[in-house]
């Protein structure tokens, strides 16, 4: 009886997860396998014209990528974005979440909407506005800096300033989403603990470190995993703001892949980049999970 019950349950389980599994298979597993296969071929415009011109080239795409200085430049840029951008975005969103969660703040719903708004506005429209904000001569950012006596910075035209400029924009654009996740976590932190700590004489920083952060540690992990993945896949922001320039200082790995695949139509090589990117994200995420496990977050 119980055995029959179990198979029935299993069948029901499969039936219910079936649609989702089918979608994952069709829209994720198959394309991923196809692009892995593509990365071992030399699919290019000749193959586009006639599939008979496709050749199986083994690891040649990977070998050429390793020899290509622009690939390494893109890799370095992306790692910089990840290394600087992830803590920046996580801290910014945590700060914003604590701000809109604090009890002394008035009009909290208004603040939440205002801080969440950048995330849901169209990227291209905000990019246009930010290009004005970052303009060398008329930009608000340079105007504010000039109040402190800082000389105008050519944000989008100088190879050293372009990366911080893009990061600023990305941070502003994405912190709202993470803020919502943090906010949900912060609201589960028992208020009694906080108050008990306060009665014991713990200051704001001590309470943050010993009460709030341990309570939301799994969320911090989740947000940082999401942010790392997002930073690795940075594309639209440099595409609309700088087109990878100046002097290729904002060519990210995904932008490089786009150029390989859709500017030069070397889809084989583009697929190889995609696969390497996949391995990078996987590796970093595994390291993060390992660290989190050791730290007891999950």
């Amino acid at each position, binding site marked *: 009886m119980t055995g029959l019950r179990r198979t029935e349950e299993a069948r029901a389980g499969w039936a219910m997860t079936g649609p989702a599994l089918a979608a994952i298979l069709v829209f994720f597993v198959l394309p991923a396998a196809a692009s892995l296969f593509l990365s071992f071929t*030399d699919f*290019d*415009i*000749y193959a*586009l*014209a*006639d599939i*008979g*011109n496709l*050749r199986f080239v083994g690891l040649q795409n990977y070998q050429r990528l390793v020899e290509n200085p622009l690939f390494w430049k893109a890799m370095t840029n992306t790692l910089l974005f990840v290394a600087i951008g992830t803590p920046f975005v996580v801290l910014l969103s945590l700060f914003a979440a604590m701000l809109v969660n604090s009890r002394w703040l008035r009009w909290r719903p208004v603040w939440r909407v205002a801080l969440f708004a950048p995330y849901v506005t169209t990227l291209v429209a905000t990019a246009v506005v930010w290009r004005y904000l970052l303009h060398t001569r008329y930009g608000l950012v340079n105007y504010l800096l000039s109040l402190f006596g800082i000389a105008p910075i*050519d944000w989008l*035209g100088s*190879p050293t300033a372009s990366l911080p400029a893009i990061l600023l924009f990305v941070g502003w654009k994405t912190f709202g989403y993470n803020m919502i996740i943090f906010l949900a976590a912060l609201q589960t932190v028992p208020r009694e603990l906080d108050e008990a700590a306060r009665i014991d004489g713990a200051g704001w920083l001590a309470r943050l470190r010993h009460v709030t952060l341990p309570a939301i540690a799994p969320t911090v992990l989740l947000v940082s995993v999401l942010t790392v993945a997002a930073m690795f896949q940075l594309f639209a922001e440099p595409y609309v703001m700088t*087109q990878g*320039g*100046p*002097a290729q200082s904002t060519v990210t790995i995904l932008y490089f892949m786009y150029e390989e695949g*859709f*500017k*030069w*139509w070397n889809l084989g090589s583009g697929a190889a980049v995609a696969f390497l990117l996949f391995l990078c994200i996987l590796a970093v995420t595994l390291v993060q999970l390992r660290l989190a496990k050791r730290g007891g977050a999950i």
Partner: protein
Amino acid sequence: MDLTRRRVTGALAALPLLPALGACAPRGDAGLTVWAMGNEAASLPDVLKDMKRPAGAPRVTIQPLPWTAAHEKLLTGFAGGSLPVIGQVGNSWIAEMAAIGAIAPVPAAVHGLLDDQFAAVVDTNRIAGQVWGIPWYVDTRLQYYRRDLFARAGYAAPPSDWAEWKRALRKVKATAGNGNYAALLPVNEYEQLTTLALSAGARLLRDDGGRGAFSDPEFKAALAFYKSLFDEGLAPIVSSAQISNVWNEFARGYFSLFLSGPWTIGDLGTRLAPAMQDKWGTAPNPGPAGIGSAAPGGSSLVVFADHRGNRAAWDLIARLLTPDAQLHFNALTGDLPARRSVWARAGLATDPVVAPFATQLDHATALPKVPEWERIVTEMQIVAERMVRGQYGVDEAAREIDVRADRLLEKRRWMLDKGRAL
């Protein structure tokens, strides 16, 4: 039926499916869709409005593309089978579009449109014995120079042979003042070195476009001449990103000469102060002995391969190439007409700033017509920049460019072996 909340939700959820019903609508009449770019796309409707077309001719729809996305759009359009009937295609892309079979060769019936055109431009579109597009407007690059600064150095215009030209640059540099230079050749742009190489008569590729010919003596001569301009301090080692405003720097006298195309005429006219307007001029490029060469540019009109038999399409192109339409088009866009007879009618042949372009186009040479060309010149310039910065000597640089070009052309050699390349 009660309007329960669930039903309303269901109906709302089905809303996104509505556009699928559009597929049930009957197909519209077979109009002519034209893909055109930038300025040209903006002016086409006006040209069409004034054009006499036979009764019952299909309706024309212009779809503008931004120049920055046009090349990708053409290739994705081909991959997705969604190319229109007629397209404006940059002359340097013709080889690629022909190689993948995206465009139809020009039928013999309309070959008359190629008369009265610049030979080098038509030659750019001639691949494997067939012409693949009708040049619509033309351009090329030549020298813009400061008349006053050259006059101060004792020259009415830049001399046309290399040795004399360089001597003039030395004098201009000597009188230009501290920190200024004679010429601007941005080290990240390949057009300048390409122009020098064409002027030296370099063939650039050999073996039917299967291998680089950058170690030929002609190319090495151009490479050495290019390097000497930087080594002697006649040109600054800067990339174009470091020159934030070319027109300002030109007016300030940071350099007295640079290479550019006809679009710069308008830029200089609007961006330089009125007092500066009679202080600049244009001249054909210098060569080792007399006027040098240049790469012909501009755009052509093509009919895409799926519509090769479309008579109305070729009829429309023929009408866009009539002298009247070309004249109107020139007035609207400032683009230089492809047909020579229109130059006289538009007064371009006597305009002192524009006329040198006709001379230069008569001395132009088509670049190698292989799809890989743009990648090859990009690599060429990366090596050339390193050479200028001292990493390579001339011979070494030439060899390195050959290695890189041969690697890029590997697939083409395989195609040639199989008899599949154009």
